[in-house]
Structures are given as C-alpha cells and as structure tokens.
C-alpha cells in the first residue's frame, strides 16, 4: 500500500484542503450511505428549504447500496456505486455543507466546480471490492428512507476505510491526470 493519510469523519475545511488527487486515505468515523433515490429526496427537501433527515455539514456520503446481511455479519458486501447518477443533485448538497463523497467513476463539471466553491473532496473506493471493503465497516444503523431497501440512508461507523482522492478542492482530477500519464 502506498503511504496513507488518516483522517476522521466528519471532515473540517482543513482536512479537505490537506488532500490532493492521488492521495491514499484511510477514513475513520461516521459516514452515510445514499444512492440516487435517496439523493432525489434530499434534493427535493433542500430545494423546499425543509429540514433534512441527516445533517450534511462536514459529513461524507458514500454512494453504496449493500448486499443483504448474512447472519453473524454487521453488513453485507458494500462497495461503491457509480457516482455520476448523483451528479444532478450533488451541487445542492455541497451548498448545504456536504464535505466529502465516496463512489466510483467520473464527476460532472458542475460537481467539480461546486467542490471548488464549497471546499469538498471526492474519493473513490475500489468498485467491486465489496467483500473486502465491508470489513472496514464496524457498525450500521438505518437513519432514513427505510422503504428504499438497499438504497436507504445508513449511518456507517468505519475504521480505516480505504479510499483514494479522485477530485480535490483545487480542481484536480485524477481521472484526467492518470490517463495522461499512462497513455501510449
């Protein structure tokens, strides 16, 4: 493993501003799962100026819908899902204080611009490494939208959850840089 930076969630602006694309990061603390269905609901509430079921300030959202939990386990395999599906809703959540996102795949220009404006960071976790990733989840609690099943909002307590900074608060984009570096 390349040397990893350890951070605690929720995040402060200082935490975010320390991170640059390509950094390996281990996150410990509380994060929240939400996929596009939950995003749509959060977005609609935020637009109406209503209270959200979770606090966004400083928090990290993980785009994930876990597999069912086998008896004796805390959670089923829970890898990242494609972040792009949440892009239409993300700038609004960032404006409400969201500081970090974990998912897989590229983000839209609107999201990247909003990340710079509101100082936020986008991490990628390894898509498909769901069995491995679930080992870093220590506790799970459904906190909203239970009716959405795997898409409900869950509060996860994570311990050294392994991610890589894909987009930082300075406009850096590892997807573009990476491909430039290794293209032949």
């Amino acid at each position, binding site marked *: 493993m390349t040397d990893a930076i350890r951070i605690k969630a929720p995040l402060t602006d200082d935490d975010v501003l320390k991170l640059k694309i390509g950094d390996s990061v281990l996150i410990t603390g509380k994060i929240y799962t939400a996929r596009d269905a939950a995003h749509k609901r959060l977005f609609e509430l935020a637009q109406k100026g209503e209270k959200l079921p979770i606090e966004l300030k400083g928090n990290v959202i993980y785009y994930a819908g876990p597999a069912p939990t086998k008896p004796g386990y805390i959670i089923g*395999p829970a890898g990242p899902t494609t972040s792009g599906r949440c892009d239409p809703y993300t700038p609004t959540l960032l404006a409400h204080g969201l500081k970090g996102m974990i998912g*897989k795949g*590229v983000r839209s220009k609107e999201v990247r611009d909003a990340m710079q404006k509101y100082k936020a960071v986008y991490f*990628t976790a*390894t898509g498909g*490494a769901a069995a491995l990733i679930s080992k870093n989840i220590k506790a799970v609690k459904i906190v909203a939208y239970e009716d959405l099943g795997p898409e409900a909002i869950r509060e996860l307590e994570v311990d050294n959850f392994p991610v890589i900074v*894909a987009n930082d608060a300075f406009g850096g984009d590892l997807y573009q840089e990476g491909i430039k*570096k*290794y293209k032949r």
Partner: protein
Amino acid sequence: MREVSSQVIVDTVARLCMEANYYLGDDVIKAFEQGLQKEESPTGKDILNQLLKNAQIAKNENIPICQDCGFAVVFLDLGTDACVKGNIIEAVNEGVRKGYTEGYLRKSIVSDPIRGKNTGDNTPAIIHTTFIPGDKIKITVAPKGGGSENMSEVRMGKPADGIEGVKTFVIDRVLRSSANPCPPIVVGVGIGGTFEYVAFLAKKALLRNVGERHPDPFYADVEKELLQSINNLGIGPMGLGGRITALDVFIETHPRHIASFPVAVNINCHVARHKSAVI
C-alpha cells in the same frame, strides 16, 4: 427422450447463482496476477491487490464478490432429446428466486422500467435458449452488474466500415466508459446478424474464459490487437491511470445482411462472473 424434473433445474440454477456471485473464476484471478506484473501505476497495483484479496474473502466466506449481484442472465442449451417435466421458464425463475434469497444476494430488479418497484427476489431472469443435439441440458448463469452494462452499445454501421470500423468503435466505446464499468474490464464484441442478435453475440462473448482466443485466427488476431490498443489508452484499474484497463477482448460473429453492419460492445467489469452445469 430423457426426462429431467423441473426441481433439478430449480436447484441447479439456485446453486449457480450463488457460486457465480461468490467464486470468481480462476481465469480472472490469474489475469489479476499477471496484470499485477505488468501494471506500472502504484495505485493500479494497490487496486489489483485489493481485487485479489476481495476474491479470496468472498470465496472463503461464501459472500458476494460485489454488492451488485447483477441481473440473472441465464443461458439454456437444451438438448433436443431432453424433456423437462413442468414449466422450464418458471423453474429457472424459481431457481433465481431461491439462489438470491437463500444466498443473501442483492435484489436489483424493478418490475416495470418506468413505474416499477423492486420485485424483491431478483426475478425475472433474462433467459437465452438454444437447442443443441443430444439429451443433455447445459445451464450457464452469468449475473450482470449495472455499472458495466450501462457502458455497452449497439451501432448499425456501414458495410464499408469493415474491421477497422469495428476497432475504432470498440476503442472509442471503452474510452468513453472511462472509470464507470469498474476496470479492469472484459470486452464482448458482436459483429453481424441483426440489431437484436448482435447484442446477444456480444453478451455471449463474455462467457469465454479470459485468455481463450477465437478459433478463427483472423478474429483471434483482432482480439489481441484490440486488447493491446485498449491497454494503451492509459485508463487503468478503476480509471485512475495505468496499464491494465482490460483483461481480455472476445469477438463473436454471425452472417449479416448485404446492407447491414451491426456491431455491439458489451462491457463487463472485473467481476466477470459465469458458472455452468450440465444436467
């Protein structure tokens, strides 16, 4: 005529759904190991190592490799001298229901594409039936994840496009997919047939084992060349830059109409799952 009870179909499909989701093929594991030797990006290497560890955990603990346990795509090769007692389609769906429920696999199917709710048991399956000589039934279950499926495409080209047109389309499709299909990917390519059949060919291509070449040396060479070109794109594991973007490229072909030139690209992620059984 050999009789096969529908319960055997149910149990076999259920078992294959679980095995495909828990046990990644040795061909894919080997491809990760070989990729690790060739990968130049340190992040890429970290990711390949994670994928190896992940596959090991899933196998040891009988848990899914990926939380997206896929659409249950089932290939039925029915021997014309075999006869299933009861409704075979119902039996396949019952098998999917059983496998996904008892196996703690994620259910990802909504009943109607616009107004639907989750069906709760991952049915219905997508079933492709072919008739083969003999009295055996071969069942293949290939659960297909959404992330990679979404990066697939059919193109009705012109006959003048030829093989160069196919190569350009495939490479462009992979480039536009970038990180979304969870690279390293496996690329299935269909050429020929009709609009709907070419997509089937691309899907069927994904059933081959990594490293297995097309029997026709012409297409085998195109597969090798495409793999090289894709790995020169620099997309790398999870799209973060690197050498190993694809593990393999498989082509399947069919005769075409003189006026048409259908090409399909079906992208699979590194969780290139498929398990078969012969009854």
